[in-house]
């Protein structure tokens, strides 16, 4: 696979193959050696004992059930916060993008300012503002279903991600051929109808991979609330488990595996959709290859924590 992709070397001849083989053996030995050192260190410190692993992997263990119930609630809460934040930020992001595309210069400047400010702030600060600062200045969300912390977290994540979505949507609309808009206007649709019936649906199709990649960022960012307040998402649950059982390495290993499994699956889904779209729109794929531009999917690594 990468033999074809990389530009750095040709298909290998006999001599290069021999060198690669030697390199393979040496690299494998070095990596195995490193893995062994890590293993020995873990073993010496007694990290492989059933005492540490039992609650997580042995169904016969007395706390096994409660540990996994905690983790289960954690996963559900993480997914819930991420899903709500995601939906809100897509809706608001689309509105911002449409406003930015259809307003005149005077209206656009404050929007750009808004986008720059929210994009420039750490998510953890925004989540803090959502969870702690908003109630202090009188925005009480305790009576909403889910409660203060949930909505604070969701709002923090939403504010950060909606401006990223606004940029993604804008790029998606801008990537459409100009004729689409001109044709729609020529058939008598209004500007708003053109946007809603012709441009946005097409833009969303190309943006789907980018949306899924951003979902990964949102999922990871839900864990930031651990530092700020009690909302029992996956990481907080892991933290309280390890505090009670005294097995941080094992617990965080399991927690990390769960995050990786979810996010890896999402990432593959994004890749799959991107590839399928690529096949559907040959022309688009070719331009992307020739210009070396990543389609919207790869462009802004929103790069949250």
């Amino acid at each position, binding site marked *: 696979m990468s033999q074809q992709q990389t530009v750095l070397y040709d298909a290998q001849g006999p001599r290069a193959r021999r060198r690669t083989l030697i390199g393979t053996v040496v690299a494998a030995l070095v990596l195995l050696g490193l893995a062994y050192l890590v293993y020995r260190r873990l073993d010496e410190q007694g990290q492989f004992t059933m005492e540490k692993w039992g609650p997580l992997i042995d169904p016969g263990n007395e706390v096994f059930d409660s540990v996994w119930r905690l983790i289960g609630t954690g996963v559900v809460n993480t997914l819930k916060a991420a899903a709500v934040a995601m939906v809100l930020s897509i809706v608001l992001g689309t509105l911002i993008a449409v406003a930015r595309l259809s307003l005149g210069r005077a209206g656009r400047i404050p929007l750009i300012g808004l986008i720059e400010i929210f994009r420039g702030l750490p998510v953890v600060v925004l989540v803090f503002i959502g969870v702690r600062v908003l109630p202090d200045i009188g925005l009480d969300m305790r009576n909403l279903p889910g409660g203060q912390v949930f909505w604070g977290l969701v709002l923090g994540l939403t504010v950060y991600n909606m401006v990223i979505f606004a940029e993604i949507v804008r790029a998606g609309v801008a990537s459409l051929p100009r004729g689409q808009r001109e044709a729609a206007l020529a058939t008598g649709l209004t500007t708003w109808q053109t946007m809603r019936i012709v441009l946005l649906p097409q833009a969303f199709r190309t943006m789907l991979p980018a949306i899924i990649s951003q979902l990964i960022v949102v999922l990871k960012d839900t864990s930031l609330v651990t530092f700020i307040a009690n909302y029992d998402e996956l990481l907080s649950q892991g933290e309280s488990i390890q505090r009670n059982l005294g097995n941080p390495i094992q617990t965080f290993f399991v927690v990390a595996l769960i995050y990786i499994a979810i996010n890896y699956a999402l990432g593959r889904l994004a890749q799959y959709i991107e590839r399928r779209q690529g096949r559907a729109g040959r022309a688009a794929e070719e331009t992307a290859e020739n210009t070396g531009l990543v389609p919207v999917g790869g462009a*802004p690594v929103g790069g949250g*924590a």
Partner: protein
Amino acid sequence: MSPVFDNIDLFVDGFLTSLEIILYALAGSVPLGVLIAACRVSPIPPLRAFGTFWVTTFRNTPLTVVLFFCAFGLPELGINRSFFFFGVLGLVLYTSAFVCEAVRSGINSVPAGQAEAARSLGLNFTQGLRFVVIPQALRTVVPPLGSVLIAMMKNSAVAGAFGVGGDLWSTGQRLTSALGYATFPIFVGGVAVGYLIITLTAGALLQVLERKVAIAR
């Protein structure tokens, strides 16, 4: 606003500590990321597998989990350092995966014909890399690498939240929780503004750099 100006020296200290974290993380994550990217494009399968493993792991794990691992896991193994060290370490490991992907996509964006042409001119592997591939790859790398690094600057707040102490985030925390200041002026007027100064400046620098290296391909 006055709670911010009353404590302006604390904020300045916090700002400088945040910059310090960022500089260390920059110095660590960029070389590490380039090294991992080199593994991922190398012709040697175990190195490629290692690079893929590294990127998959760190890209899909929240930075918070990486930090928890560093700060709670490593002491279990007998590695005891300050929270500052663990914070920077977590940030470096996490960011290196993103740096790697930015660099790799840059290298892959150079059309194969460029390297082939270099070889047919008689340049050897290093010369081809040095004079043909890398100069072109660098230009494509600048925008994504820039946004990865700006994200890292924002993530330094997470390392701060972790208990690094003394950075912008922790300053805000201390003023509001221990010293009882209202959260709104401290976080919106102080902490947020501090991070905006960092990220907006970095963003502006990045734009200048992008314009400098921009090419029409």
